[in-house]
């Protein structure tokens, strides 16, 4: 009796590689298709992850220490602030609060100008936001002074006509030094500038605003109540302070106040990842599909071209499954090589994009590891139909059709 034909794995690999490289140019082009698809997928997942991570690290520190308290806006009802003027002092007593300060817009009429103005040809009057704040504002928004000083409680209590200006205002009014306490006009009133802000981490509108003490605004502009409170907390205390602040500020009706914290950074990261992902994953998927069709097409063409070879192999003892296996493996190999190349290219793209943006590249370890498997699976699936076609050929017909 005769034992069955066999086609060992080593022979399968050898014959498949030989088959692939009998047409190297075509194989390489086909492999590129898959490489492109896999590369896009890897790069997409990596860049989304990297960007998401970047957002988190950048906003983490700031976001986890920030609370903003505002009156609940009630449609219809007149917006009546229940925030007390000593909000900053009250909140500072809470454990976990680093600094707290009120901030309100001051309704001024008239423009702002430097005094004296000496250049009639240039514009000298400007429109800037004017705010009233308590003394701790700078710490609450994590700001720094370029020169001079921020006002203190004494200024507020005495309703001194002093102001601190943002760098944009200083620039327009041509003020660089405050040691002489230069005067500016807000409408018809004269204020002394005692400091220029350099930078703020929060509330960037302060950079182009004029800020006066609460007491001054109450006295000169009849400011009724503070509009909002900015709180800087120790890291991680923001959620807790957000719960406590309304009660501390308005024990009788805390419901009228709303404390907002920055969105949970993990949520932000997820949103970013999903945004980037959904777009490019679709792109990568389509590329991969096109790559798969490319493989299927090339393997099919190669089956048709190699009909004579198929007939020969059948004559040499190959069973149908051996023929199918060989073409399937050639297809799988193209997908696998494409997957490896794509994974490498994708990782390089992530590193490149990160280097360019000075980010830390982040990638789930399974992504580059799974990529070749994805490529191989694509090749395998693409090879099914051509391989079955090859296997279904009758040996005589194959020998007759091909040379």
């Amino acid at each position: 009796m005769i034992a069955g034909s066999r086609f060992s794995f080593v022979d399968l690999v050898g014959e498949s590689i030989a088959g692939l490289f009998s047409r190297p140019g075509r194989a390489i082009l086909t492999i590129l298709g898959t490489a492109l698809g896999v590369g896009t997928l890897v790069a997409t997942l990596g860049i989304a992850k990297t960007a998401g991570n970047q957002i988190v690290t950048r906003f983490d520190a700031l976001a986890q220490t920030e609370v903003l308290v505002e009156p609940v806006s009630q449609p219809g009802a007149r917006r009546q602030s229940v925030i007390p003027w000593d909000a900053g002092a009250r909140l500072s007593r809470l454990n976990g609060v680093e600094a707290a300060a009120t901030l309100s817009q001051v309704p001024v009429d008239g423009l702002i100008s430097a005094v004296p103005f000496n250049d009639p040809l240039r514009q000298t009057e400007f429109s800037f936001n004017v705010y009233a704040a308590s003394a701790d504002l700078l710490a609450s928004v994590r700001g720094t002074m370029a020169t001079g000083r921020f006002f203190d409680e004494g200024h507020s209590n005495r309703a001194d006509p002093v102001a601190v200006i943002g760098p944009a205002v200083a620039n327009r009014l041509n003020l660089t030094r405050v040691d002489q306490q230069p005067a500016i006009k807000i409408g018809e009133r004269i204020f002394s500038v005692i400091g220029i802000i350099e930078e703020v981490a929060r509330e960037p509108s302060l950079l182009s605003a004029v800020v006066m003490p609460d007491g001054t605004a109450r006295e000169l502009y009849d400011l009724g109540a503070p509009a909002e409170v900015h709180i800087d907390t120790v890291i991680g205390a923001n959620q807790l302070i957000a719960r406590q602040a309304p009660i501390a500020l308005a024990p009788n009706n805390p419901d009228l106040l709303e404390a907002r914290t920055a969105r949970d950074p993990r949520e932000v990261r997820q949103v970013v990842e999903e945004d980037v992902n959904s777009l490019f994953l679709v792109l990568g998927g389509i590329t991969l599909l096109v790559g798969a069709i490319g493989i299927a097409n090339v393997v099919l063409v190669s089956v048709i071209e190699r009909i004579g070879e198929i007939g020969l192999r059948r004559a040499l003892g190959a069973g149908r499954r051996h023929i199918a296996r060989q073409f399937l493996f050639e297809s799988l190999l193209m997908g696998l090589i494409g997957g490896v190349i794509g994974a490498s290219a994708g990782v390089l793209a992530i590193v490149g994009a990160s280097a360019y943006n000075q980010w830390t590249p982040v990638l789930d370890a399974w992504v580059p590891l799974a990529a070749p498997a994805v490529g191989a699976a694509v090749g395998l699936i693409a090879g099914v139909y051509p391989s079955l076609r090859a296997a279904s050929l009758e040996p005589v017909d194959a020998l007759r059709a091909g040379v």
Partner: protein
Amino acid sequence: MTLQAPTGVAVGPGHPVVELIDVSRVFDTTPPVHALRDVNLAIADGEYVSISGPSGSGKSTLLNLLGLLDRPTSGTYLLDGIDTSDLGDRRRASVRGQRIGFVFQAFHLLNTRTVLDNVVVGQIYNRIPRNERKPRAIAALERVGLAHRIDFRPDRLSGGERQRVAIARAIAHSPSLLLCDEPTGNLDSATTEAIMALFEDLHRVDGLTLVVITHDEAVSARAPRTVNIIDGLLTESA
């Protein structure tokens, strides 16, 4: 697997290697082609038979049936006494791989592989241990006088050299039945002579059962036994 050489065995009472009983092959074209009609043929172990006949008479069709590449439309084909119509696809493939060697009219060499590779590929499906394949291939190539062309690609070889590569491939795995379709079809008389001598050697020394298709009178005359096919009908010539 090399068999003892029962030189010059006629179709005798011993059981034949190949036995066709009332075999017909009809191709389902319109109109149908009766390529073989009620063929009866017995070939004994170690016999050397040449098959001749005009073009289109059914010689290749007969060879394909003998080689289990095709199935008869009707009739019985016994190979080693076993009815081949009982054999499934897999079994037929393994019989082809281990017992039969083919030399095709169109060579069927793999042009992207070396001569040596071509002969090695002939042994991958039939359970020949990997480390034996190369020595066997080299021995077969030496036998056909192509040891110096081992690293060539077939498309760089002359027609006669290609034919000899095909023969080396067909004998490297020591088949017991060698089926050759026009093995000297493209060759000059000197090369034909060399190849015929090789066949006679395989037959005499190795005891191969040899079936050679040819329409060359001189070639067919060298075989101890000759059968003729005309229009699918087989006749034994004396």
